[in-house]
């Protein structure tokens, strides 16, 4: 009997939630795919956050995503390109045979099997259950083995003292850093700064979302249009996928 009661309660609760979602307003759902995670609740492996980059929409010469990331996370800007960190960069690619060229942003690819996490001696490099790869800046000893191991050159060592870091993106001299997929925004139910900035330019070449949710826009696009991994030969299963690399 107790089991039946529980089932009935669950049914009513689900029905209520559905009604609230439907009734709030047309097209506006309370329980959206990028709902904020309540404080104290750990990240869940039911989600796999990812990015889809449509290189056909990514404008050559536009670096709105890079500036937005720099502004949001407070890196770069010393004018020393060899040692300044770069969490995201625009790469221009040209096929010497056909002459075809395109450009695309490259950042941490948030691999399912990240080599940086494998090689990190102290476990400072880590992968959250929801697929976001991060560096624990309190545990990083600055050995740079992760930078040697990353096939995407996504990581930077902070070579100098950091003035005034953002409260949500702690950074410090002698430790390694990289794209966090704007984890502070994602946990608050928002999308990464680069995605927002790209949409503002009108190009909308970046889509952020939950690859594990079949109903999400990103999962639908990957299903319908494909979504290639950079260095797919390595089998790292990155969370960042690209469209239009080989057309």
């Amino acid at each position, binding site marked *: 009997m107790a089991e039946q009661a529980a089932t009935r309660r669950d049914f009513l609760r689900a029905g209520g939630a559905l009604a609230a979602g439907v009734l709030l307003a047309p097209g506006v759902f309370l329980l959206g795919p990028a709902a904020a995670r309540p404080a104290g609740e750990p990240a869940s492996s039911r989600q796999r956050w990812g990015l889809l980059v449509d290189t056909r929409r990514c404008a050559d010469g536009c670096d709105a995503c*890079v500036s937005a990331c720099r502004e949001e996370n407070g890196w770069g800007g010393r004018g*020393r*390109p*060899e*040692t*300044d*960190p*770069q969490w995201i*960069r*625009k*790469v*221009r*690619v*040209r*096929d*010497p*045979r056909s002459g075809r060229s395109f450009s695309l942003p*490259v950042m941490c690819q948030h691999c399912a099997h990240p*080599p940086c*996490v*494998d*090689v*990190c*001696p*102290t*476990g400072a490099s880590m992968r959250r259950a929801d697929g976001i790869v991060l560096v624990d800046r309190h*545990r*990083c*000893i*600055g*050995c*740079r*083995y992760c*930078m*040697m*191991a*990353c*096939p*995407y*050159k996504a*990581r*930077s*060592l*902070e*070579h*100098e*003292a950091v003035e005034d870091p953002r409260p949500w993106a702690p950074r410090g*001299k*002698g*430790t*390694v850093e990289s794209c966090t997929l704007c984890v502070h925004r994602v946990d608050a139910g928002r999308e990464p700064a680069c995605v927002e900035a790209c949409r503002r330019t009108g190009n909308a070449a970046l889509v952020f979302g939950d690859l594990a949710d079949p109903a999400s826009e990103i999962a639908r696009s990957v299903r319908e249009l494909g979504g290639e991994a*950079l*260095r797919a030969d*390595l089998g790292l299963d990155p969370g960042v996928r690209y469209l239009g*690399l080989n057309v």
Partner: protein
Amino acid sequence: MKEPRLQAIEGRSGGFYALAALLGALVAAGLWAAWQMEHHGHAITGMTNQIVWGLPHVFAVFLIVTASGALNVASVASVFGRKAYKPLAPLSAVLAIACLVGGLAVLVLDLGRPDRLVVAMTRYNFRSIFAWNIYLYTGFLAIAAVYLWLMLERRMNRYSRVAGTVAFLWRLILTTGTGSIFGFLVARQAYDAAIMAPLFIAMSLAFGTALFLLVLIGAFRATGRPLGDHLLHRLKNLLGVFVAVVLYFTAVQHLTNLYAAEHHGVERYILVEGGAVTALFWVGQVLVGGLVPLGLVYHPTLGRQRGAIALAGLAVLLGGLAQIYVIIIGGQSYPLILFPGMEVSSSFFDGVIHTYRPTGVELLLGLSGLGITGLITLLALRVLAILPAALGDEQAPAPAAGATEAVRA
């Protein structure tokens, strides 16, 4: 045969103090450099986000690789029962410890956060070869120290063979670990090859034997103790074999890469178009580190002269530094290939050969590793009875007699 007596050096000569002062100055300069790097950050070095590991790593890896090879003479005595080498086994163990401490000191002082060493000692990720290496290195130091004690403490001598065997196996695993730091890096075109482990083992045997020969000749000469030729000639022949093995593995490493089209770019860079890296490969590694010492040790007349043998040892060490420079710096200065067959450019140096201009601080830090190794060895010679009072040909018999001794022992 009477076993040679081991005796500490007197250590009161001007030469002793001058050498100690020189090595001490190297160590002090290295500590100053490390403090500068800690204070200002790695921006004051030539290392960048492209050349992630630089000169400190060249010296550190060189010393760590040499450390396991320096134990070679002790292994030959204990594990393979060559009694003639037995009087030299304690010096061999001391040299191994000294090299490893020197190398590790440089590695640790180069960390972005050397103050967090305690984190590295308390938090482990066992998928990381670095984490294994922390155990392999500290374990090696402990085993070599116990082995040394068993050899020096007469009542414990009978256990030294067991400890020697453990140390020998441990050092093989240790160098496998060091080589695998590079061998397991799937990201980079120049690494990601299983041959790195055996190549590093061969390198360790050659570098370690070369360093041992130099210290042996130098210590006996400086203290005026007699040193016979038989043992020296056997050691230099051994060095010749090891140098040939390094050349062999190097050839296999590059030929295998050349067979795979995806590695053509990086091989062309290292072997032909790499400028300083190419010069260091052919002149430093192959000629100075390989062909010259081979010519010296196997030359019918030169090979019998002490000066030529010492020169061969020095050449192997210089060639070894060049080889590790080519592996570490050459491997990184060739760009990562994200889009095979495409031309790429970016604000983060995609698609371009990275230049590396080391600065004084990283050179000083690297050299201080040699200083630490030298100082530990010198002090150990002064306080421990590890150097034979005499090692003439009567103490170290010719090969045939030595072999008989070994069988009897």
